[in-house]
């Protein structure tokens, strides 16, 4: 197995270049993606369900709750967002539990591009990243120059991470190379003036991709194009992150790493609301990818209400009592 390099590192480009033959043309890319092993839906769902029966108790639960908190991209993506709300969310991200300052901080605050500057200022010195959705989120229905401008704008405002959406229409109609090129160009648009890059998360909107085979193909496509993270969903459609889809993406990341040595992160988003759900995802990461991925650098939860449930469970573990929703902050 090749030595590991992070997807956002300088060496990653060289590794991807070694796979350039499969992305040389639309035909080559299609043959490669369709040559990946198929996915048996029943088997995949059964495996995800079995992992969901793992029983995480006592010390393991305490560890996992803190880990999950530290992996949250605390998100607000509403038309009604205000600078005040974003600042409140940032304050919460820094000190999630006002009753226990020992609670870990979240990984990032995720907002629309126009709120990036507000969030950046509110998070100064905290070490928490600002993530911005871009590329005409959530539908992705805009011309490429508009998407690139959207991305550059967010990066210029100080975004540390960009969550882009792919063109599902192009993917579903089989124009794989067009999706590939678009991701590459957005990645280039993540470049800052000093030559460094904002990390790029690529959202597939798996709820719209219909088949598990498509999820495996799009995962490889995005990783070949230079994604630092692959992400399930926008949270804006009926079906968001599910355990089987996330498991499949974890397997794709594992196989991509085994092939190229490039380490890519995974972010399930949308619909993960309870501690119990979060535990199931961490178990999947643990038993599919292992310790190496069990940090906020390589696994994130895109969530808003999950944090409060984690905090209530955390309080329950430390005090022995269930405090209730009045003892966590509403956002």
């Amino acid at each position: 197995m090749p030595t590991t390099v992070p997807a956002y590192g300088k060496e990653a480009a060289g590794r991807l270049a070694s796979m350039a033959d499969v992305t040389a043309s639309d035909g080559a890319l299609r043959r490669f993606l369709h040559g990946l092993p198929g996915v048996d839906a029943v088997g995949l769902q059964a495996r995800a369900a079995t992992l969901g029966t793992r029983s995480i108790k006592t010390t393991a639960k305490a560890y996992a709750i803190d880990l999950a908190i530290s992996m949250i991209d605390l998100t607000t993506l509403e038309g009604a967002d205000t600078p005040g709300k974003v600042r409140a969310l940032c304050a919460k991200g820094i000190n999630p539990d006002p009753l226990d300052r020992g609670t870990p901080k979240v990984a990032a605050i995720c907002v629309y591009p126009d709120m990036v500057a507000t969030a950046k200022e509110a998070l100064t010195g905290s070490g928490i990243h600002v993530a911005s959705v871009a590329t005409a989120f959530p539908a992705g229905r805009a011309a490429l120059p508009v998407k690139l401008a959207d991305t550059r704008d967010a990066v210029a405002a100080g975004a540390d991470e960009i969550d882009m959406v792919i063109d599902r229409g192009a993917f579903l109609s089989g124009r794989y190379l067009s999706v590939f090129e678009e991701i590459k160009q957005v990645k280039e648009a993540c470049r800052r003036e000093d030559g460094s890059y904002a990390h790029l998360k690529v959202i597939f909107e798996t709820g719209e991709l219909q088949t598990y085979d498509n999820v495996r193909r799009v995962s490889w496509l995005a990783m070949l194009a230079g994604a630092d993270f692959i992400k399930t969903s926008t949270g804006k459609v009926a079906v968001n992150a599910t355990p089987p889809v996330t498991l499949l993406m974890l397997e794709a990341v594992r196989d991509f790493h085994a092939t190229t040595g490039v380490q890519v992160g995974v972010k399930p988003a949308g619909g993960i609301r309870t501690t119990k759900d979060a535990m199931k995802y961490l178990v999947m990461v643990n038993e599919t990818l292992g310790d190496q991925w069990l940090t906020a650098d390589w696994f994130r939860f895109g969530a808003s209400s999950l944090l409060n449930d984690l905090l209530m469970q955390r309080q329950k573990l430390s005090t022995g009592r269930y405090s209730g929703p009045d003892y966590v902050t509403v956002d």
Partner: protein
Amino acid sequence: MTFEYAPAPESRAVVDIAPSYGLFIDGEFADAAGGKVFKTVSPANEEVLSEVAQAGSEDVDRAVKAARKAFEKWSALPGAERAKYLFRIARLIQERSRELAVLESLDNGKPIRESRDSDLPLVAAHFFYYAGWADKLGHAGYGADPKPLGVAGQVIPWNFPLLMLAWKIAPALACGNTVVLKPAETTPLSALFFADICRQAGLPKGVVNILTGDGSTGAELVAHPDVNKVAFTGSTEVGKAIARTVAGTDKKLTLELGGKAANIVFDDAPIDQAVEGIVNGIFFNQGHVCCAGSRLLVQESVQDELLDALKRRMSTLRVGDPLDKNTDIGAINSAEQLARIKALADAGESEGAERWAPACELPDAGYWFAPTLFTGVTQAHRIAQEEIFGPVLSVLTFRTPEEAVAKANNTPYGLSAGVWTEKGSRILWMANQLRAGIVWSNTFNKFDPASPFGGYKESGFGREGGRHGLEAYLDV
């Protein structure tokens, strides 16, 4: 720091095991006439769980007489009335499933995850399914008013104690027979708890009788002249002895015996799910499964990729305390079985196959064997021919579909097989070629009461489950 799962043991307090149990004959628990008893231990730590009666010939006779006496009224009941009892039993099993799952894991050594999520739901489902047939026997294709056989003598193995009991008792009662059942020597407890469920359900006395004991009890039972039907699940060796015993009598016989199933993986298989299927095929229930996929036939071109993935997956298997909810592989059922597995694994090594097992710590007390695979196995090796009945996988390769079929069928057994490919036409072609009672495609060890189960060749005859399962208990 790493993500280590803390112990998550299921509570033992949900099951109350008495220090001793008698035989269940004619609705009452009674000591064996000879007064003999034997101990049953937990294979995970060799702790004695209870003492049970060893039934002798006098007890067998008494049980068969009780069943004969009960047969008259039971068989005369309208099917809908028999169904009521079976539905009641099914619901009681569901209500007591947590207790029974813990008991099964204690006495058998299987992980609680399996007894809870697999055994017990299937046990209840089997009773529900055959309860549904009881008043519809005239529509099963065996004549307008098919008759039961009489008294069924049933002998079951230790690998799925309660599930095998359900497979035997549910169809027998639905068809109007009465039964005398002997559970395995090493796992008698769940059958005795089932006797209690029969009482709770108000089942008429003598319809179900449970005799605990060793092989001699089973031999007495199948040889009893007033038994009309013999059903056995277990080893091919004992099955042959039973066939000799009943030869020349008018007893009806069904046998469900050993297996050496091939799990065949083609190069276009869904690899991740195939790996899960291989693991489930051979490591489910510690490989104590007659239909276990104990031979992996993998197409040459994906051999390396598949074996790497399989080894990686095997390294995540959690071996240990059967009552821990996170345990994947529990204890080997008995010292005797462990010795057999060890002997065959050693033979594999000495015959030149390459042995591999993930690093895993085994408990000191009890009977344990790490999940193991052998590569470089040929058809001539003992581990490719003999049933190991343990967590040991033999890996062979093939080049063409024809070769896969030839190797898969090259065994005296014929219970099950698995085919992994994304090509539907190949699945159908393979299913036609494979001489096995069950062919799973892109899955393995999937059970359902509506689906008939049984073997070809030395894996036995007769079918259990589904409409076909009724035939074994009807006079047709």
